[in-house]
C-alpha cells in the first residue's frame, strides 16, 4: 500500500528524460511524465510488488486543439490487491504524434490504443496490430481531433445527411 507521494518517489529514478510532475487536481491524482519514459515507468508500476498496478482500466486520448499544439494520453491504472488508483498523463506534439505501446505490459492496451489510433491518429510504436477498429479502414481523417472536418463523400454516399 503506497500513497501517491510514495509512488512518485519510487518512479522518479526511472524517468530519465524529464523529472515527473504531479497534478493533484485530477482525481485520481495524476503523474505527468515524458513520452519516452512511458514503457519503463509502466513496467515498474506493474512489476514492483509494492505498487502492483495489475489492471489498466482505461487509456484516453485527448486533443487540446490546434492553438495549444498538444495532444495527451491519460492512462488510468488500478491495483486490485492494494485498492490504489493512479492516472498517468503524457503530452505529445500535435503534428506526427508518436508514443511507445504499452500493450506488452497490459493486454488491455491493445484495443484501447487501436481506438486512439483510429480516432486521434496517434501512432503507437511496437503495437502488434495497429489497424482502425471502430471506423471503416478507408475512412479519411481522425474524427475526435478538434479540427476534424468529415469528408464529403464516402464511397459515393453523401456523409452529411
Amino acid at each position: 500500500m503506497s500513497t501517491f507521494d510514495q509512488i512518485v518517489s519510487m518512479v522518479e529514478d526511472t524517468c530519465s528524460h524529464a523529472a515527473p510532475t504531479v497534478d493533484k487536481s485530477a482525481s485520481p491524482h495524476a503523474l505527468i511524465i515524458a513520452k519516452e519514459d512511458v514503457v519503463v515507468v509502466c513496467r515498474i508500476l506493474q512489476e514492483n510488488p509494492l505498487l502492483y498496478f495489475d489492471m489498466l482500466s482505461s487509456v484516453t486520448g485527448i486533443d487540446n486543439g490546434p492553438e495549444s499544439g498538444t495532444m495527451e494520453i491519460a492512462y488510468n491504472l488500478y491495483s486490485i490487491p492494494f485498492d490504489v488508483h493512479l492516472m498517468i498523463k503524457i503530452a505529445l506534439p500535435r503534428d506526427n504524434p508518436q508514443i511507445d505501446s504499452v500493450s506488452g505490459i497490459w493486454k488491455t492496451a491493445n484495443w484501447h490504443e487501436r481506438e486512439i489510433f483510429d480516432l486521434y491518429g496517434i501512432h503507437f510504436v511496437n503495437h502488434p496490430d495497429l489497424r482502425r477498429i471502430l471506423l471503416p479502414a478507408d475512412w479519411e481523417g481522425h474524427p475526435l481531433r478538434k479540427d476534424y472536418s468529415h469528408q464529403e463523400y464516402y464511397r459515393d454516399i453523401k456523409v452529411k445527411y
Partner: protein
Amino acid sequence: MPTDGVQYKSRPGNLTSSAPNKFNPDKLRSEEMIINLGPQHPSTHGVLRLEVLLDGEIVKEVVPHIGYLHRCFEKHAENLPYNQVIPFVDRLDYVASMNCEHAYALGVERMLGIQDQIPKRVEFIRVLVAELNRIASHFIAIGTYGMDIGAFTPFFWVMRDREHILRLLEWASGARLLYNYIWIGGLFYDLPVGFEERCREFVKYIRPKLQELETILIESKIFIERTANVGVLPLDLAINCGVTGPMLRGSGLNFDLRKVDGYSIYPELEFEIPIGEGKMGAVGDCWDRTYVRYLEIHQSLRIVEQCIDQLTGEHKRTRDFDPQELVPKKIRPAAQDLYVRAEIPKGELGFFFRADGKSDIPFRCKCRSCSFVNLSVLPEISKGILVADLIAIIGSIDVVMGEVDR
C-alpha cells in the same frame, strides 16, 4: 420526399470490404480456411463480425471486427451540455440503461462536488431501479445464451419475466428501454404511487421462477456438457486483459465495484458477491460465468427488497419531496480530469472527463466500456477449440454491441 438524383453509384471499388480481413486467403496453408461469422448472425448478439481461421473444425485464430454500430458517442458528448448527454449514455448498454446513467451521474456529481448531498431517498430509488435493470440484463444474458446453444424454452421464460421489470420501469420513467430517469443531482420524477407494492409482488413472483430457470437450464445435463470446461479464462489473463464483471468473478476473483468502491448507497446494503468455483468443470469456464450471473440475480433481488423496505419505511414518500431539488440549473465543473467507474451488469463502466472550467460542455468524455474490453479477450481464449464451442464462448461473454462500438 423525392430524392434528388441517384444517391449511390455502384463502382468496382465500392464492392471491396470496408473492414478487410486480417488474413490473406492466398497465403494460407492448404488445410486452412477463413470462415466469416456475422455481422448478421443470430449467435453473435448484434453486429459483431468474426473472422475465423479454421483448420478443419479446429479454430486457429479469431479476429473480431467491430464498429458496425458506432454512433460517435464521444464526439456527441463533446458537443452537448452534461445533462443532455444522458440520453446518449442510455444507448451505450441499451439493455441496462439505468446502470449506465447511474455511473454517468455519479461522475458529474463528483466533479461538481455534490455527491454527498444527494438525498437518501433519491439514492435508494437509483439503486432500486439499477438493480431491477441488472436483473433484466442478466435475464437477457442467460436466456439468449441458452438459445445460442440450443435451449429454446428458457429464453421465452426469462423474456416473459423481464417484461414485468420493463413494465415497472416504464411506469416509473415513461420508457421501456432508454429511460433518461437518473439525472445529475437527482431523478426525473419520484416513484409512482404503488410502485413499491408492485415491486414486492414482483420479487415474490420471481423467486420460484428462478428456481425453474435453474432446473431447466443451469442444471440441465446438456447445458453443462456444452459449457463446462469450455472457454476457460485463467485469472491472471483476465486481469491482464482488464476483464471485469461476471467474467472476472467467474474466474474466481471476488471483485465487485459495488463492494470495492462502495459508491452510492451500496455500503449500507447487505449482499454477497458470487464467484466462480469450478463446480462443473474448471474455474472460469462458460458455465461458471453463467452461474455467477444467475446467482447475482438472487443478490440483486435481496438489494431490491432492502431498498423497498427503506423506501416504505425510513425514507418513505412525503408530500414535499422533490427529486429534482438538487439538479443544478447550470452544470459547470471546475477545470479537472476525473475518472469514475461503476459496476454495470457487464462489468466496469468508466468515464473519463476533462472539464475546462469555462463551459457547460465536457472538453472530453471518454467511455471505457466493459463489453469492449471483455470482447478483446475472445481471441486469447478461443485458440484450438471447436467452432461450436466458439459460439458458446461468445454467448458467455455477454456483449452488447451498443456498448462495444459506442
